[in-house]
């Protein structure tokens, strides 16, 4: 690395370790990243591969198209909640109410599609209404956090109890509401045809490739150094492989056959929310508030506005997840939103590498974390283990992931200063 400072950003020079080639450069970059506490997605992707291989040997019916589709649908609801959790954690806040806000979302949808209730509306509209209602809940909770200064832990703990109470109160008499609307149920039970699946994989790959290309062109136009080309290429190959690989396996499933819509919805929100977090001023401000709220305020950022919007996102995503979870069982019952939903959603984000202290993490972490949790629980289930074992293993994975992250962070502090 050359000694004088700014030449890294001059156009023709490229990144310093570009001068090394092939494996040496890869190794060097990996070493720098590990030293600076930036592990990226590599550990979790490797972990996921290990889990899949392990259960493929352990349980004969694990690595099948049918089970693959199962995992996708099972993780979809949790992943949606976890996406919202990422934003809340980025602020350094917490939202404990999401599981029952998801219940409220499911309840609203179920109530609005109920035939003969006098307020039955189109299923699509019902879903929009549920998301809006939950976003308003988030706005209310966020406002108390942002304006009054009550800790989010307390506000959302209260929300946890209140919304659970609302669900119990509303469903006490019927016990459950069956969801018959086909649009709502499609979110968990629609499967694309083979061709549609391939098309979707193609679109995802193309959109990603175009985004990468746009970024490279923009940098070239501004005369700014372009990141390591081999890494960009590797990511592109990885994304294409994951997209087409998923479709290939899903298309081998017998019943239900094809790529599940739920999986496509997860990817859709993954892309949209990643864009929001990394490419917009709003996302930048979320990271800033999470990193140093006072600095953000002095920089002219409207901190309360950011906080409220983040809690709205969190609750709105809870509603989306709640709808999918309800559609998966075609009903909403008294216990909806209980169990491990809340903790799985938070664990998913944390396993993926989102810091609980704010300012560090990515939306994709929730995706990968939710995938790990769903795969492990599905794998143990398929291999015939009891629920108790599943909880224990999930707990150990959570602890392991956070320990790894904490050690990485310590190294980062040491390599700075």
């Amino acid at each position: 690395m050359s000694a004088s400072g700014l030449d890294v950003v001059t156009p023709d020079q490229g990144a310093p370790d570009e001068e090394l080639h092939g494996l040496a450069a890869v190794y060097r970059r990996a070493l720098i990243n590990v030293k600076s506490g930036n592990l990226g997605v590599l550990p979790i992707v490797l972990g996921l591969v290990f889990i899949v291989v392990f259960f493929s040997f352990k349980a004969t019916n694990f690595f099948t198209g049918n089970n693959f589709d199962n995992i996708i649908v099972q993780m979809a609801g949790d992943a949606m909640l976890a996406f919202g959790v990422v934003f809340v954690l980025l602020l350094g806040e917490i939202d404990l109410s999401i599981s029952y806000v998801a219940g409220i979302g499911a309840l609203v949808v179920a109530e609005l599609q109920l035939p003969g209730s006098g307020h039955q509306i189109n299923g699509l509209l019902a879903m929009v209404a549920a998301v809006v209602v939950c976003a308003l809940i988030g706005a209310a909770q966020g406002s108390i956090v942002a304006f009054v200064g009550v800790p989010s832990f307390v506000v959302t703990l209260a929300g946890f109890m209140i919304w659970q109470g609302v669900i119990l109160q509303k469903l006490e008499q019927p016990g459950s509401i069956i969801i018959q609307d086909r649009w709502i149920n499609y979110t968990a039970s629609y499967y694309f045809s083979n061709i549609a699946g391939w098309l979707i994989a193609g679109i995802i790959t193309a959109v990603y490739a175009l985004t990468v290309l746009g970024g490279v062109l923009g940098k070239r136009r501004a005369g700014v150094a372009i990141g390591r080309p081999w890494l960009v290429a590797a990511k592109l190959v990885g994304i294409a492989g994951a997209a087409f690989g998923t479709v290939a396996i899903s298309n081998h499933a017998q019943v239900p056959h094809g790529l599940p819509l739920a999986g496509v919805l997860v990817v859709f929100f993954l892309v949209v929310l990643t864009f929001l977090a990394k490419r917009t001023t709003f996302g930048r401000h979320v990271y800033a508030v999470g990193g140093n709220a006072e600095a953000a305020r002095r920089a002219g950022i409207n901190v309360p506005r950011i906080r409220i919007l983040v809690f709205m996102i969190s609750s709105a995503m809870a509603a989306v997840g709640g709808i999918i979870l309800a559609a998966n069982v075609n009903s909403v019952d008294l216990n909806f939103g209980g169990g491990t939903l809340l903790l799985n959603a938070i664990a998913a984000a944390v396993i993926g590498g989102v810091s609980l202290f704010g300012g560090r993490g990515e939306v994709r972490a929730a995706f990968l974390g939710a995938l790990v949790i769903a795969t492990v629980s599905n794998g143990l289930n398929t291999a015939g283990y009891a629920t108790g074992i599943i909880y224990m293993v999930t707990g150990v994975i959570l602890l392991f992931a956070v320990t790894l992250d904490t050690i990485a962070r310590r190294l980062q502090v040491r390599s700075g200063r």
Partner: protein
Amino acid sequence: MNETPLLQLRNITKSFGSVQALSDVDFEVRTGEVMALVGDNGAGKSTLVKCVAGTHSADSGEILFEGEEVHIHGPKDAANLGIEVVYQDLALCDNLDVVQNMYLGRETHDWLQRLKEPIMEQKTAETLKSLAVTTINSVRQPVATLSGGQRQSVAVAKAVQWNSKLVILDEPTAALGVAQTEQVLALVRRLAEQGLAVVIISHNLHDVFETATRITVLRLGRNVGVYERARTTQEEVVHAITAGVPTKVSGIPGTAHAGATA
């Protein structure tokens, strides 16, 4: 040197409840000069700066900027005038990189609120280059990985990037080592050479005598005097800080301009 001062404060008074933080304080700074603002703890330095920055508003008194009276009600007003403050605790986000910090709150974006990263990166590199900040390896590294001096340099660069006319530095060398202090002081002098007005608040008289053109001393919320660096000594300034007599007393006309220099 320019005849009208860039910033002129007249009879600024500010109290917090029963505590009188500032009483009839006058202050001025011209373009191209480094004005040091010194005083013991509780002398009112920070309060005075916060009145200029818009964090507090003065109870009474007037603020003249480029000869015209202005009213500063918030940080945005100050920024619009071209006044930037670099605070003691730096006001940088550790988790963001240099470019992201430089543009924090004023990101370049299109109508979709999409960030224009390449442009921001390029401009950041230009700004750092123009200030001869050469110790930062990559403008894409998180601020957490920078040294204290580098962080201070980024904070200063962030302040001057916006065509600012006046930069106020609150204890810029408080947490720095010897070499890094030199780095930052050199940067402060360069700012003045580039035609900015600079106010430096410091406890460290060594820093003050290294950089300042003039020195304003406050004591217990009142003016003690304004000294020209070339015609004073550290002893004289220390004496003013610890035992200086207020140069004007509230409500008694005729004492208003009896400072050490006019």
